């Protein structure tokens, strides 16, 4: 009977010894790249024509908006490349210039986007600016701490558009690839 036991242990031992592991290449982990791409809106500006007409003494509206989304470590240390997309539409009766400047913490201008719009009727102006290896310096995005917007009325402050609810609008969105794992 003990012989049976011996056989059994031989079976177990054989299983242990004969068990195989096909060659695994764990160094492949180094080649694993996790680089998702995220997109979201960043800034929406809406200026009705009546507000433009109410501006007195100046034809310029300008404002510095704090914008920390790009400079947060979780983003700035991981962003690889991406694109900012702007959609500008003018349905007022005036020609306008809209300027967007990206500023760092010290207030230094890093990049400028400029849009010149004729009076209505105008088409929607779409502009895409790429950042990264094949575009503008990605450090512009990484170091942006605020956005300075300047809207200049190149026309008068009396006329009114024939469009319903005339206004100038700026839509913008960001689409960036970030590196989760090297």
């Amino acid at each position, binding site marked *: 009977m003990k012989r049976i036991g011996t056989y059994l242990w031989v079976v177990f031992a054989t299983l242990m010894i004969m*068990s195989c592991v096909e060659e695994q290449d764990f160094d492949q982990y180094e080649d694993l790249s996790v680089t998702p791409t995220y997109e979201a*809106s960043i800034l929406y500006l809406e200026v009705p024509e009546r507000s433009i007409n109410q501006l007195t003494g100046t034809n310029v509206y300008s404002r510095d908006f704090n914008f920390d989304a790009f400079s947060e470590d979780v983003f700035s240390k991981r962003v690889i490349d991406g694109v900012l997309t702007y959609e500008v539409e003018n349905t007022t009766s005036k020609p306008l210039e809209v300027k967007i400047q990206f500023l760092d913490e010290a207030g230094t201008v890093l990049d400028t986007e400029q849009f010149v719009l004729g009076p209505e009727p105008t088409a929607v102006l779409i502009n895409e600016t790429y950042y990264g290896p094949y575009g503008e310096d990605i450090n512009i995005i990484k170091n942006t701490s605020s956005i300075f917007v300047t809207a200049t009325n190149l026309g008068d402050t009396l006329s009114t558009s024939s469009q319903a609810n005339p206004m100038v609008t700026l839509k913008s969105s960001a689409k960036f690839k970030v590196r989760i794992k090297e």
Partner: protein
Amino acid sequence: MIARKYFIITALWAGLFVHAQNKQLLYDFTEVPQALMINPGMETDFSWYAGIPALSGISFQAGSSGISVNDIFADDGLNINDKVRDRAIYGMSVQDELSGTYQVEIFNGGFRGKDPSVFYSFGLYNEGDAIGYWFRDYAILGYEGNADRLNQRFDLSHLKTRGEMLNVFHFGVNKKVSSDLILGARGKIYSSIFDFNSVNNEGYFVTTEGQNNTFASTLNADLELRTSGVNAIDHAHDDDNIPATVIKRGLFGGDLGLGVDLGFTYYLNSQTVLTGSLLDLGFVYHANDVENFALQGSATIEGMEIILPDALSDPNQDFWQNLVDDVEGFIPFEKETTSYLTFRPTKLYGSIRYNFGEPMQGSAQCDCDYRTSGKGPNTVKYRNSVGGQLYVINRPRGPQSAITAFYQRRFGNFMAIKTTYTADKFTFTNIGLGASIQAGPVNFYLMADNLLAYRNIADSNYTSFQFGLNIISWGKK
């Protein structure tokens, strides 16, 4: 970097090879005292037994229903990024799980009472149990992002996980009620060392076309993570004092609970036996060192919105900070310490066994057979048994089951072996082998599962083993 790599690989191994705790080899293996732990109503013929402390019962089981290490790390010339995307990110479903358990008996013993039809058993074991379902939409969002996925909802309910480590003090009674029926029950006191669970999550994240701006990002979240003991372990880690903290919390210094196991063995006829058991019907009340985290609410944002002339009303307002504050206000992240209750993963076993072959005298010394208990509870044992078993465990996504066919062979009172074929959601080719050797009073058992997978362990979705060492007496003179 290297440490992180190996940590991830180790975690992957540990996670992938952890499996629901089906002990189909040990179940109703009446030669092994530890089988009483999975059916307190098992047929017993021992006079007494004593497990070798810390060696009487060690089991580890691991598995994955969706992927194996070989699927990702095989040296097959394929790009690992393609393999991860095709086989893990999109290859696994939310029903796929990474789960498992281990159990180590600290001590275990049993003795027959003055009434020889009653057998008592008692002990303490440490158990760890964890399960995580594949968080598919989180993985897609993390691996590929939300770009160019307009209107695609990322389902936050895909996060479903729980785990715990606890000590279990138990005392069981096994009684031969009649010549046909044996009943058993085991009371348990759970002393939880740590627990975490996040199982009732709801919500979604979606990017849609915005009303004003280009995109609207919506987060609708009802997420909760409940923990107990984790904070204590974390502090103990900082103080380099983990063993003392684990021991303290495991010896009634943590969170306590109660539970019961029930079981029976019933002879349908002289050779056909029906058995069943219900294990860990119990709960743990977590009131000590509790930390719960919740993210509940809903918000839709379209970036910073500056709409004149309202935006001119406060020249100092910080639109970015207002946006952040609004989101945090609508979806607050909260931490609180409210006590909570968890139910243990209840398990159900059932079997039907047909004994055949030459009857033989059992180990105990008595004038008895299978229907006549005589002086002791011993029964006649047949050389062969064949039958089927059912196993069901309650899991966060509902019950999981397995069916097993088995054959058992006894070689005198010296040795018994059992071989099983099991089919479950993890594999349809699970063949197991277990043996119990009795050398005088010393009992040793060893059981291993999914033996076919030993051809390439890295490609296995499941593996397990259990072994133990006991001293057994049948009261022979």
